[in-house]
């Protein structure tokens, strides 16, 4: 039973199209994230949501719009896709651990987006 599941796993599309990636977690976590891994394997946070509320919004083009219908789901919609959007997108969720309540992330398997 997958803890953080993303669909689709692979997505190939043309420039200018609009596409969505879906994410669901069954861990009961309150916080969910989108991270982007580029072709050099560099990982960077894009967004985080806590109980359907946007918490972190890194300087991401507004062509990227996250949507959280409930705390178990966080979808990523991308408008007008560009070549530079080609990457692996990872969804994650977290729970607080330790005395300081630090968030520990559990990642999904990733969605590889290729824009032609």
């Amino acid at each position, binding site marked *: 039973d997958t803890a953080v599941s993303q669909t689709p796993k692979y997505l190939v599309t043309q420039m200018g199209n609009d596409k969505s990636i879906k994410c669901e977690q069954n861990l009961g976590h309150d916080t969910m994230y989108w991270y982007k891994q580029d072709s050099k*394997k*560099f*990982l960077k946070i894009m967004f*985080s949501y806590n109980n359907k509320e946007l918490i*972190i919004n890194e300087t991401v083009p507004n062509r990227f719009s996250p949507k959280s219908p409930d705390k178990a789901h966080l979808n990523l919609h991308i408008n007008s896709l560009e070549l530079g959007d080609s990457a692996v997108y*990872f969804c994650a969720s977290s729970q607080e651990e330790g005395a300081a309540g630090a968030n520990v992330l559990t*990642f999904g398997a990733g969605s590889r987006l290729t824009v032609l």
Partner: protein
Amino acid sequence: AQSVTQPDIHITVSEGASLELRCNYSYGATPYLFWYVQSPGQGLQLLLKYFSGDTLVQGIKGFEAEFKRSQSSFNLRKPSVHWSDAAEYFCAVGGGTGKLIFGQGTTLQVKP
């Protein structure tokens, strides 16, 4: 500036040999430190984490890491590497919010 540096892009070790992957960080506040492993086509799996207390932390799959505040380092070690350990290893630092700053990763190759 907040950053994580993994000086070794690629490391090759023989099966059964010991392993040390280096990680140095720059972070203005109390750092929470993590090591993740990514196998080909897979997501990131948490190996271990450090929040506070004992500076030597044990993780899964026989890995351990040592936090050295004076050196701003959090190196990952394993006494005896198995072929299945071949993967990409990422060190990350965060302030507890879930916003992690990752290093560029170290690719581990294991020779038979």
